[in-house]
């Protein structure tokens, strides 16, 4: 299988009054054709910033200070002209936002927004509307009503599904989904995830899920990337990460998920505070919260290395 996107040695810095904030520090990963990966981490781990970097659209004042994002066919994103990037966006890679409810222009009908996308990519408007109708049908959306509706006339779950349909409109190779279900109730969450899973089974599309809650996406991803303090601390197949996590942080993360049935006392919260990106330690960023910490964890940065089949982790103790 070929790689849809390859991220290599990506670093992103947010300048601030107290000094530069290293939001993303030298991370590399690839997404293969038809693969679904989840990038998991707590607030401030840099996962959303990675999502925007995949579009060279890191929010101000963030700055990509190093690395490369290479799409299929050797397309080096950061080297494209503005116009080439514009044409690349949405047709090859699209995004579903964290608050997808707010990503629709509030004063235009859904049909108009679809036509605007079609216009921008030289697609026939009628063909675009027909494709949207098809997508809406697979998502159990009443396309007749929704097409002529304004965003405020739709419910949150509806808008979310519309924005997913819009993301799929031009048949992209990659869809980045930033917390696609956080704003939804559990029923809609399940419905949306099932729709996405069906889409992936029917086409060779790749997904990147960004989430803080691994339990929500566990059933729709193949591989998980765990981020902490702007770095990748562990990657591996989802079954391995959930059942047998290696890195102490991942273990803590999995242990903190409350079980649906059973005793809450088995759930443990991670002690301490998330890493301070302004003042990262010389050694492992997780060391001060780690139960297994050793002397070298404080002085030496652990490098990411292979720890099993298709699994990597950055930890001295393993």
């Amino acid at each position: 299988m070929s790689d849809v996107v390859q991220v290599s040695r990506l670093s992103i810095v947010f300048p601030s009054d107290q000094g530069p904030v290293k939001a993303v520090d030298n991370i590399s990963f690839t997404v293969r054709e038809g693969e679904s990966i989840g990038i998991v981490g707590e607030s401030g781990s840099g996962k959303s910033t990675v999502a925007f970097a995949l579009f060279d659209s890191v929010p101000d004042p963030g700055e990509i200070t190093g690395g490369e994002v290479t799409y299929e066919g050797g397309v080096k994103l950061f080297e494209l002209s503005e116009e080439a990037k514009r044409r690349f966006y949405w047709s090859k890679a699209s995004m579903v936002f964290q608050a997808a409810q707010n990503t629709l222009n509030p004063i235009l009908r859904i049909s108009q927004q679809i036509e605007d996308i079609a216009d921008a990519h030289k697609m026939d408007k009628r063909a675009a509307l027909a494709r949207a109708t098809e997508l809406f049908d697979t998502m159990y959306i009443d396309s007749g009503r929704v097409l002529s509706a304004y965003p405020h006339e739709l419910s949150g779950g509806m808008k979310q599904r519309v924005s997913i349909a819009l993301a799929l409109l031009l048949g992209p190779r990659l869809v980045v989904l930033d917390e696609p279900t956080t704003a939804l109730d559990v029923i809609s969450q399940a419905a949306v995830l099932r729709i996405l899973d069906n889409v992936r089974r029917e086409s060779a599309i790749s997904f990147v899920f960004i989430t803080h809650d691994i339990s929500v996406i566990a059933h729709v991803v193949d591989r998980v990337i765990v981020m902490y303090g702007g770095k990748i601390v562990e990657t591996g197949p989802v079954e391995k990460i959930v059942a047998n996590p290696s890195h102490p942080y991942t273990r803590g993360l999995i242990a903190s998920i409350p079980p649906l049935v059973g005793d809450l006392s088995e759930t443990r919260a991670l002690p301490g505070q998330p890493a301070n990106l302004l003042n990262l330690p010389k050694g492992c960023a997780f060391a001060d919260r780690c139960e297994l910490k050793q002397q070298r964890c404080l002085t030496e940065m652990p490098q990411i290395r292979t720890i099993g089949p298709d699994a990597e982790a950055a930890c001295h103790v393993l």
Partner: protein
Amino acid sequence: MTKLLRRLGISVLMIFLVAALTFFLIRLMPGNPYEVMYHQLLMKGMSQQQAMDQVRSIMNAIPNQPVLIQFVEWLGQLLHGNMGTSIQETGVPVTELVLNALPWTLVTVSLGLVISFFIGILLGVWSASRRNSWVSGLIDNVGSIAHAIPAYVTAVALLYLFNVVWHVFPSSGAYGIMETPGLNIPFLLSFLYHIVLPVGTYVLTGFGSWELAMKSTTITVINDDFMMAARLRGLPREKQMRYLGWNSILPLFTSFMLSLGAMFGGSVFIEGTYAFPGIGNLFATAINSRDYPVIQGCFLLTTTTIIVANVIADFAYSKLDPRIQA
């Protein structure tokens, strides 16, 4: 439709209330034109009866009639479309005075409002798109200062500079004395030439608040998720700007319509400075000479303008912004 009727009903009621209030308020002002004239006539040696008859025939009012009765009488006349006659310009109907003055003010005020709105919108977007540079700070400060200076000061300053010092623009009137008002080129040119300073005053004192308001809504909208979405959807820059522009201007629309009324009020000072034959000037002169019927006429006209503008704004807004229902 019933909503429209209800809105209109409320509007008529409001106009009536304002009319009634002004009727009594202006009679609370010190100095009463009927008595002034009555006493003047007495001093000229007339008998009380003669003076009273004289006042009644000139002013079409009985000086010592109770105010309430005067009010009822005035209201009755008003319902017939008769706003009475001027005291100062004896015998001239108020309707005629007001309707003669209205077009001048309407044109200058609307022109001033539209120009200042557009300048403000453009500068606001510009300032918002460069909000960390010195240009933005300069635009904001110039706008604030121009807005903060009272309009009559700006008017006097412009008059001094462009008339007294540089002799560029005329100091008074709405057109040259050689021209005949109507749809002819010489008159229109002369008119444009004469309104440069009044309109310039409205623009100078008005654009700043539009600029600041537009900048703030634009910055809010720029950071909205749908703008990032528009970029990632690969929409061309012009389309993105259209998304940004419409969403930023909409909140300003209501205040735009309301300003029309406010600027009618502002015209009192500006038209006085430029001796411009509009409503503001008429109003100022009427107040100084306690010309009750004319004052009432001006008030009535201004309120009606504001209220009508309000109703139009409400209905137009619901057409422009799908989220609002009239």
